[in-house]
């Protein structure tokens, strides 16, 4: 690593800014169209407070909140894909 300290805020602020606004706009959009009653939206909202945490490890904790926490293999699966948050039926 070079001796000169890179300004990571210069490097990443605009990217983080647009992603934050995108989340806000997404929540506005689904509100406007009455589509907030979805387990994925609930999971997203449960994870949002992690952004305000002062402890490092926010990304891992958000990922854990969006993960199936069960431990045993399931007997079968009727689907092949994944949706980004554990389904209540899972």
């Amino acid at each position: 690593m070079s001796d000169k300290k890179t300004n990571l805020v210069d490097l990443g602020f605009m990217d983080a800014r647009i992603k934050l606004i995108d989340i806000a706009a997404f929540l506005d959009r689904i509100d406007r169209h009455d589509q907030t009653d979805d387990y994925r939206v609930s999971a997203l909202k449960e994870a949002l407070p992690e952004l305000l945490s002062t402890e490092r490890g926010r990304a891992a904790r958000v990922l854990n909140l969006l993960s199936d926490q069960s431990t045993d293999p399931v007997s079968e699966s009727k689907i092949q894909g994944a949706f980004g948050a554990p389904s209540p039926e899972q």
Partner: protein
Amino acid sequence: MRYIEPHAHMVSRTTDDYMALACAGCKAVNEPAFWAGFDRASSQGFYDYFRQITEYEPKRAAKFCIDHYCWLCINPKESEDVVLAREVLSIIPDFIQCDNVLGIGEIGLNKNTRNELQILEEHIQLAVDHDQMILVHTPHLEDKLKGTKLIVDALSNHSSIDPSKVIIDHVEEHTAPLVIDKGFWAGMTLYPESKVTPHRAVDMLELYGHERVWMNSACDWGISDPLSVPKAALEMRRRGYDDSFIDKVVYLNPAEFMGQNPKFKLS
């Protein structure tokens, strides 16, 4: 810059992509066997696919001065059909001795079912029986954490598995320590919409170190970017990492892992 693309499904990509890889400095591609986007009707489909990645694809790569290596298996999505999976497992030994085959992969789990786990364990045994390295796929999104734990347990419970000859791919911040702390290699997949971005991949190097890790694009028929590894290299450079650090991550590390099979030789 020189680099190795250690996880790419080139059968799904165009010659333009090969040209872009070559121009970006790619010296070799590593192609694990995968899901074609639909379930194949019989083991004969896999036989033809194995011929494609052992005979035809290396010739296509060579036209762009890129070495081509591959891995064999039935992928976790199709492993739910145990009868089909066992038929495919029975034909894999016919291809293991091919010049560009480095091991068994990408095996693993998809929806974390009992059938998938059974076939994963049979793949692990096949690798042990034939003294092959292993490349593992971990599940997507909400299934990744649970699947990674099941996979690590299945591998750790096998007395003949050497973790240094196994790479567990598609790790993210919540699964990387589970893999690295057990002595396995870890792969980070750079995807535009899921898995990790170049920014997060470099963050993980800072969090978990740059030994026993590689970065890949896993480019396939879906939304993916075959140039994501050089883009991660640019992110490293922007943060101030020097050429030797970048070279280790994107070239020397994958060469070290794949080089454990003597068939891996960079031309």
